[in-house]
């Protein structure tokens, strides 16, 4: 079982990210489960979504309390919400930011994780460039694939195309591809404090 | 009003139910021996029930207008209770009762079902009393209007909750005594409120057809039912139906009291299409509201002892305003 928790703000696509991830997992034959933990929050409020991937049927429906990976769509949440709570010692952290982990002030925390398990990705910048709107999901999921190696880029692309038809889908795929490329360039798996820079 | 055919030269014009001098095709439905009797004998309405009469009038007219292809949704209330105590039904139409507040919505559902089943010939009427229409059923009614569902809603307005023993509804007129607005204190009877004119509210929805009618003018009522069935979409017909029990008038005077309501201007009779008033029934022999009020014991406190001329004047003012507002007295007619 691989469990991902995604933190963001209402309107940033947190739930969609979990759904996309579950679709990508499904594409690869996994059993996948995406559950939002949202309710009456409005645009801007902190929200969380979960995604589980497994080799066999997922029966449990409890919220993910000890994630294997955490995606943080908005770095401003770092100091408001306990985003890393329950993160397994071998877990992954991916943050949407054009700044570095140190610059974000969490260098010390991520140092406890295995090498290459934490990264920043300027996903919003990529989205603005490719999609024209601040929707960082595609790039972030590509980034998650890149740092975890759990899913193939093609699965993410397929999920994106399933969810977003036509031009919008392709633009998101383009954003995802560039994110992959960025991680390939800096070889994040080698460095614990990788920082994908825009090329 | 373009209204029913107004025949000259007849001893009874077209005010009576029948007129053997008219061509058969323009005689009233009620004069026809083979009328449907949509509400049949043996029902348990009180003696002189205006609602029973109004319902038969309206549904018989509708049955003729749509060639018998009619289904009816009925709200809870007197009309439903007195017509269908198990194991007997007085209805001679396809008829469904669901709840007090939902006749309009049930009508919507039936209309949708008929549409989807391709039964385009079948038309839908929803009906209820004033309580089930202007109070508890108002939300469903407004929803039906707003969606312009293909339903004619008929409200039989007897101005209070008669089924439960004459309690005030929002259709109860000012100063009327009911079981919940007793004739005691400084403000006897029902309050002089803002009123709740559902026909005007219906018009505000911009629906194809809205009309008021009264059991005292059968031909006008039949004309309006027939006209309403000529439209598709949401339609509303508000029929004044006196209740001898609740109003405290003689059982034989049901139509007489209804007539005085119309002739005094207290119950304006008009019709409207797409939110615009298109016709009104002119008052024929205008009477002061006193004539109407004095017939009914629910207003007896206004005339007891030295009487309550101030309140009677306020009621007269309501009638006068109706007459002005709806143009009920034609120019040059005796006032």
């Amino acid at each position, binding site marked *: 079982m691989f469990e991902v928790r995604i933190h963001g703000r209402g309107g940033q696509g947190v739930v969609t990210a979990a759904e996309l991830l579950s679709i990508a997992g499904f594409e690869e034959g996994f059993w996948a489960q995406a559950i939002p933990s949202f309710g009456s929050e409005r645009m801007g409020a902190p929200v969380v979504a979960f995604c589980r991937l497994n080799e066999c049927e997922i029966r449990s429906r409890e919220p993910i309390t000890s994630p294997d990976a955490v995606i943080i769509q908005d770095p401003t949440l770092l100091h408001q919400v306990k985003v890393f709570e329950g993160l397994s010692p071998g877990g992954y952290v991916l943050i949407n930011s054009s700044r570095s982990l140190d610059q974000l002030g969490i260098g010390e925390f991520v140092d406890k994780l295995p090498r290459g398990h934490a990264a920043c990705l300027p996903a919003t910048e990529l989205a603005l460039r490719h999609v024209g709107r601040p929707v960082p999901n595609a790039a972030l999921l590509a980034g998650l694939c890149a740092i975890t190696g759990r899913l193939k880029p093609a699965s993410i692309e397929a999920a994106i195309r399933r969810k977003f038809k036509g031009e919008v889908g392709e633009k998101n795929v383009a954003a995802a591809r560039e994110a992959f490329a960025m991680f390939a360039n800096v070889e994040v798996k080698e460095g614990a404090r990788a920082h994908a820079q825009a090329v | 009003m373009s209204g029913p055919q107004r025949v*000259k*030269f*007849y*001893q*009874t*014009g*077209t*005010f*009576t*139910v*029948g*007129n*053997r*001098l008219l061509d058969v095709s323009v005689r*009233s439905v*009620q*004069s026809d*021996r083979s009328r449907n*009797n949509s*509400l*049949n*004998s*043996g*029902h*348990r*309405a009180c*003696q*002189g*029930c*205006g609602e*029973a*009469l109004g319902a*038969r009038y309206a549904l018989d007219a509708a049955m003729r207008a749509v060639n018998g292809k009619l289904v009816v949704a009925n709200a809870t209330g007197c009309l439903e209770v007195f*017509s*269908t105590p*198990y*194991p*007997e*039904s*007085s*209805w*001679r*139409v*396809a*008829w469904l009762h669901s709840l007090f507040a939902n006749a309009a919505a049930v009508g919507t559902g039936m209309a949708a079902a008929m549409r989807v089943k391709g039964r385009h010939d079948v038309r839908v009427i929803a009906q209820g009393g004033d309580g089930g229409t202007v109070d508890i059923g108002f939300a469903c009614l407004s929803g039906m209007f707003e969606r312009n569902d293909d339903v004619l809603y008929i409200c039989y307005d007897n101005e209070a909750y008669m089924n439960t023993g004459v309690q005030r509804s929002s259709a109860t007129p000012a100063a009327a005594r009911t079981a919940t607005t007793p004739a005691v204190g400084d403000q006897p009877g029902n309050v002089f409120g803002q009123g709740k004119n559902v026909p005007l509210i219906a018009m505000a929805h911009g629906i194809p057809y809205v009309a008021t009618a009264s059991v005292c003018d*059968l031909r006008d009522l039949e004309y309006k039912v027939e006209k309403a069935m000529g439209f598709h979409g949401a339609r509303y017909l508000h029929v004044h139906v006196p209740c*001898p029990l609740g109003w405290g008038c*003689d*059982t*034989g*005077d*049901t*139509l*007489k009291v209804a*007539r005085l309501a119309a002739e005094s201007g207290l119950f304006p009779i008009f019709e409207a299409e797409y939110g615009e008033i298109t016709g009104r029934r002119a008052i024929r*022999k205008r009477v002061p509201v006193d004539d109407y009020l004095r017939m009914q014991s629910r207003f007896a406190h206004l005339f007891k002892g030295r009487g309550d001329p101030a309140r009677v004047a306020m009621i007269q003012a309501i009638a006068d305003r109706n007459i002005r507002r709806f143009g009920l007295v034609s120019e040059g007619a005796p006032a």
Partner: protein
Amino acid sequence: MNKPFAITLDVGTSLVNKTGSWRTERPVYVDRLPPCNNACPAGENIQQWLYLAEEGNYEQAWREIVKHNPMPACMGRVCYHPCEDFCNRARLDTAVSIHSVERFLGDLAIRNNWRVKPDAPSTGRHVLVVGAGPSGLSAAYHLARMGHRVTIYEAGPWAGGMMRFGIPKYRLPRDVLDAEIRRITDLGVTIKLNHKVADLDQTMRSEKFDAVFLAVGAHLAKRAYIPAGDAGKILDALQLLRGVEAGDQPLLGRRVLIYGGGNTAMDVARSAKRLGASEAIVVYRRTREKMPAHDFEVREAEEEGVMFKWLSTIKAESEGKFTVEKMKLDDKGKPQPTGEFETMEADSCVLALGQDVDLSFLSRVTGLTITDGVVEVGPDMMTGRRGVFAGGDMVPAERTVTVAIGHGKKAARYIDAFLRDTTYTPASKHEVAKFENLNTWYYTDAPATVQPALDAARRISNFEEVVGGLDESNALFEARRCLSCGNCFECDNCFGVCPDNAVIKLGPGKRFEFNYDYCKGCGMCSTECPCGAIRMEPETI
């Protein structure tokens, strides 16, 4: 369909619930006597023929009239229509113009040559009618329809009596009168003109009459004593009118006084204008309000330029000067002399003071009682002498053509019973339908149609009929203004307004029945019946 228990019911099943048991009062259909019928001296069923007429059944309507009155065309013209005085419609707008519809029907019958036949086989009995005036003609007509042989002896040269000698042509054209008399003779009645009965007993014996109806009328003019210098200047009304009828041109002069205030005075005054008088002045001892002449006659006379001198009596004449005494009304409305006199110049004076009966031929008939110059009759119109009946102006009654027609009908019925040796019992009368019994809401506002009239200038130059007839649409309109007081006219109101569908409509002409199984006795049918033909009666407990 297997219907869910108690949730789904068959339609119309409430018929098993007989709600009639709730009733404490029951409606019943009644027939009340229409005030017009009640007022008609001829006993016409006016409402019934109006009912038939309003549907356009003119012949049936006419036949309904002639059941009672053989001369609708004449009566429609000359009857003073008391029916209209009592018409309930008058309280709504104006009375139904019954006479004009009657006239329309009568004229139509003449135009279409509608005939009547005896209703009964011949009885072989023979009745003598003395006098071919309205009463005699009426009796003869009815007796003939009853199967009897009738012979009328008429002393004068024409049949018609006062219809011919008392009523000017401009009110009753003679072709109309002749046509209606001809219909009676066509029925088999023999009229022997210029046949004066001198000795009734002898006539009856010799001709083997089984019964006799006396209807000689009142043809002797009443005279007032007026000392006159020139008796030729004073003549009586009947003399004048009879002269006109005979084609004479009586010399009245330019200025004519007519003394009297009855309808005959009006007839004379108006005839005088037509005969060339430039001034016709009615001299009457009381006021217009007290004048016995009908208002419409006075009005028409005024329109034609007839003048009136109220509160005046003529005392004497000398050389064309008439001495007139002024009168005043006392507390009881009776004229009293004042002793003030004035003089009126006139070329002639016509006395229209009423008529007396010429009873000379009865002087030898035993058993008759004569009081105040008229023959007494019983309720069966029989005189004190068995088998001798009398009617019209010669018996104590109002002297109108219609009363006379009624007498004829009534006498005929008793004579028929007499001949058949049975008893005739008149049908009991229903209570009269009052205005208060009506629900007038249902009647359309419809004032009476005005009959066309010749303009005054044309009238006074000739004896053309003054008042025109209605055309068909007007006649229909008038017929349909009838309120049908007290009698169901099948307006369907009861059928329609019953909240319990407890009224059974039986079909055209068959009226309605109550279904007491379901009638709860609310009384709405009774309240909403326009004509007051439903009465609520308490249920017996």
